[in-house]
Structure formats: C-alpha cells, structure tokens
C-alpha cells in the first residue's frame, strides 16, 4: 500500500523529469529527459567499473556513518549527562559545527592523501554533528515524571541512560541517523569528486569534465536511489525499534 503510493510519487517525479526538457523549459542538451538518463544508466550498470566504484562509495559511506553515529551518540549522551560538560563544550561545538567539510579538504588530503581515510575524515566530520545535535535535543525531552520514577527506584546513572534516556532520545536519534546517512553519502561522493578517491564521486568528476551530460545525470540518479534505499532501511528499523512510540503506533490505530 505505502510502497504503491511511494512508487506513484516517484513515477510522477520521473514524468516531470521527462516533461521539463521535452517542453523546452530547459534544453535537453543540459537537462536530459528521464528516458535518456535511463539509457545512460543502463550503460553504466553494465560497466563493471561502475560496480567497483559503487562498492567503494558504499564502503566509505557505511564506515563513515557508523563512526559518526557511534561517536555522536556517545558524545551526545556523555555531554548531556555529566554535569557542567554541556556548558563547557557548548561554545566549542557551536564553533566547530558550521565549518564546512569542503573547507577541510586540503587538510584531509594533507593528512591522508586520497585514501579511504581521507574520505572518512570528511564524512565523519560532517555527519557527526547531525547525530550529536539530535541526541542533545532528544536527551532534553525526557519526561520529568519518568525520570523521577527511575530515580526513586534507585536506578543508577547507567541504568537511567539505558532505560529512560535512551528510549526517549531514540526518535530523535533515528532522525539524526537519517540525516547523517544522507550527509554521509553526500560527503562521500563530494570527497571522491574533489579529491579523486575512487568511487561514484570520481566517476561524476570524470563525467563532468568530459561533458558527458546524460552519464552525469545517471550518476546523480544513482546517488539519489542510494539515498532512497538507505531511508527505506532506516524506516524499517524504526518501525521495529519505535513500535511503542506515538509516531509509529499512531499509524496503526485510526
């Protein structure tokens, strides 16, 4: 049911992509219609190098995301729980957060060249903040009565984190992970694009400098589709992990 509606939405979007150049709103030469992109995509997926690049991108993405989420959750919880730590780090966090990964590219290359680690540095730097901020807002959302209940039953810090704070923050964390997943993908591709580490991004760079417009759009579509898959996965995890939450249980009853 939901899948059918989603497919309908996508179909409408693709139809729009076909119509815009066909109607001459932009030139086909610069914005190829969906059918032309599909043809280029067909060529791409028959190329084995494409799959290798895709594998590289996914590796960078998955590793980067895992590190960012792990670090974001741990730091977020620790900073929120330990007294004064939040005050102490607030200004530093706010200072570091808006520094764009792209400005750090020379530094990443300087440290790690075009290796995976270079990509990871940029990916982790950018997606870490997404998780951190969501965790900090999520922790703040703990219901005072729930917190008091836990304290009155002598739950220690760790037990309170695990049984009260974490479930409360989880919906926020899930949103953070979804945000971070996209940012990580974006940065993986961007880093590959700019510094030439192997992956889809490097492929996009080649297509760009080669004036291969349909191929370029085909690769953009691939990143979009990756984002779509990642979100679908995140949603199913959520349906399981947040079955108790209003946002999920609200979907069941009328």
């Amino acid at each position, binding site marked *: 049911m939901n899948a059918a509606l989603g497919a309908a939405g996508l179909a409408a979007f693709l139809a729009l992509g076909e119509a815009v150049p066909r109607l001459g709103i932009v030139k086909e030469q610069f914005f190829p219609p969906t059918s032309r992109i599909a043809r280029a995509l067909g060529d791409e997926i028959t190329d084995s190098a494409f799959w290798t690049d895709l594998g590289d991108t996914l590796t960078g993405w998955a590793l980067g995301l895992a590190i960012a989420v792990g670090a974001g959750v741990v730091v977020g919880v620790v900073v929120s729980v330990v007294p004064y730590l939040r005050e102490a780090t607030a200004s530093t966090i706010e200072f570091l957060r808006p520094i764009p990964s792209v400005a750090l590219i020379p530094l990443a290359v300087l440290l790690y060249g075009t290796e995976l680690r270079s990509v990871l540095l940029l990916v982790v730097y950018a997606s870490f903040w997404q998780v951190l901020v969501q965790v900090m807002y999520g922790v703040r959302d703990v219901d005072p009565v*729930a917190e008091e209940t836990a304290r009155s*039953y002598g739950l220690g810090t760790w037990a309170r984190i695990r*049984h009260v704070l974490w479930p409360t923050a989880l919906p926020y964390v899930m949103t953070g992970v979804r945000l971070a997943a996209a940012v990580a993908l974006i940065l993986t591709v961007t880093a590959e694009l700019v510094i030439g580490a192997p992956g889809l991004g490097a492929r996009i760079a080649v297509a760009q400098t080669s004036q291969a417009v349909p191929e370029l759009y085909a690769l953009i579509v691939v990143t979009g589709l990756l984002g779509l898959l990642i979100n679908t996965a995140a949603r199913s995890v959520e349906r399981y992990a947040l079955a*108790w939450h209003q946002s999920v249980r609200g979907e069941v009853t009328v």
Partner: protein
Amino acid sequence: MHASLVVSGLRKVYEGSGRRVEAVRDLTFTVDAGELVCLVGPSGCGKTTLLKCMAGLLAPTSGEVLLGGRRVSGPPPGMAFVFQEYGRSLFPWMRVGENVELPLRQKRLSRARRGELVADALESVGLADAARAYPWQLSGGMQQRVAIARALAYEPEVLLMDEPFAAVDAQTRADLEDLVRRLWRQRGITVLFVTHDIDEAVYLGERVLVLTASPTVVREQLKVDLPEERDQLRTRAAPRFAELRTRVYEQIQAAKRGEPVVEDAPPPR
C-alpha cells in the same frame, strides 16, 4: 532495620515562569518505623510536593527530611514511590512486565526471583494477563495498578503512595486497600499514603494527618483507634469509624475554610 521518617520545618517554594508559589510553608511530623500513616488535605495543598521532598526527588527550600536519622538528599534505597501521574510514570517503551521488572534488575535479583516477584505483583493487582501489553494499551485504572504492582514487587521498606487508587473502581479499590494493609502487616514496612477519600484514610491508616490549604501546615494528627484487623464491611460499619471519618471531614472542611488550627487533641470518644 525499618526506619522512621522525620519531617522538620519543611518549606518548599516553587519559582519560575513568572509564578511564585509557597506550596509548603512549615511542616513538621514523624512517621514511625513500620507505621501506616494516611495524609489528607485539600487539592493543591502540597501533598505531592511533600512526598517528593520526602523521597529525595525535590530539594526543599528549607527544613529537612530524616530517614532513620539520616538526612535525605536523594532517593534512598529501599523506598518505593507510586506517583499520582501514573500514566507518565510508566515507561511506554516497555511492556507491563518489563516496567515492573526494571527496578528489580537494579536490585540485582536473579532472573527467576524477578519473574516470580513480577508475576506475584501483577497477580495481586489483577493484571496477570496484561504482562505482555504496553502501558498505553491499558485503561487508566489498569495503568495505575501497574504502577502499584511495580512498587509492591520492589519489596520496599518505605512506601510512599500518592493517590494510588484514584482511577480504579470501588471493588478493586477495596481489594487493593486490603492488599496494602496485609503487606504492611506482613512485612512491617513504613507506609505514607495520600488519599482524597476520607473513608479510605480512616480505614487504612493507623494515623491520619490532615493538612491545611496552602500555605500548608499540619492541621491535625488523628490516631485511628480501630482494631488492627480490619474488614471492609464490619470496620466501615463500626460507629467508631463513623466518628473518625466525621472528625476528619470536619477538619478538612475547616482547613479549606482556612480556620485557625486548634490544639492537637484526639477526637472525643
């Protein structure tokens, strides 16, 4: 082992969001070890505030609470609290059984023992079937009974209950009253019980504390000289019960009207 609760000169002022409320002005009283005391008072007089201060959940503005001679500055071990906001005090992400079990895990009881305690507690509040449901799948009264079951399973030495039976029907309420008295007598625990039901206060308590309206002080401490062994039908029909309940009723009405506190005297026999 069981400890007395001493409240002395307790004062609590809430401040913030442009409102300043002196919820509790000056409260001094004692609950002996192993005693069952009921607390009544007008709505908004500070009963919940008092209980939270006693549980170490809220820092008093001045005055102090002693448990077994030691100053309470955080939730003491061995104390269980049944919150008035029962709905919000259950964790919606845990099933009923898990909600009841959680404090027991904290106590590092064995898995088997925990299972036993949870089953017993749910059984005793009539919710044996509901262990696998989530709290939000239960009715209000059922949720409240889960919160009670959690406190009972915890096997506390001191039990603070804030209008714990407000949402259950009369019959269940009577059953739960008897359950509390039975547990109190068996385990020798110290119980402080807030209720709005005067009959309940007299039926349950060894002593009834009547608070005045805000700013709150103790208006009266009434010894309930009914026999230890109580019975829903006979006790409630006893003439002494009627006398006591009338006395409490009068005191509360006086408290609401803001009449001066009279000297601490037992009700006339």
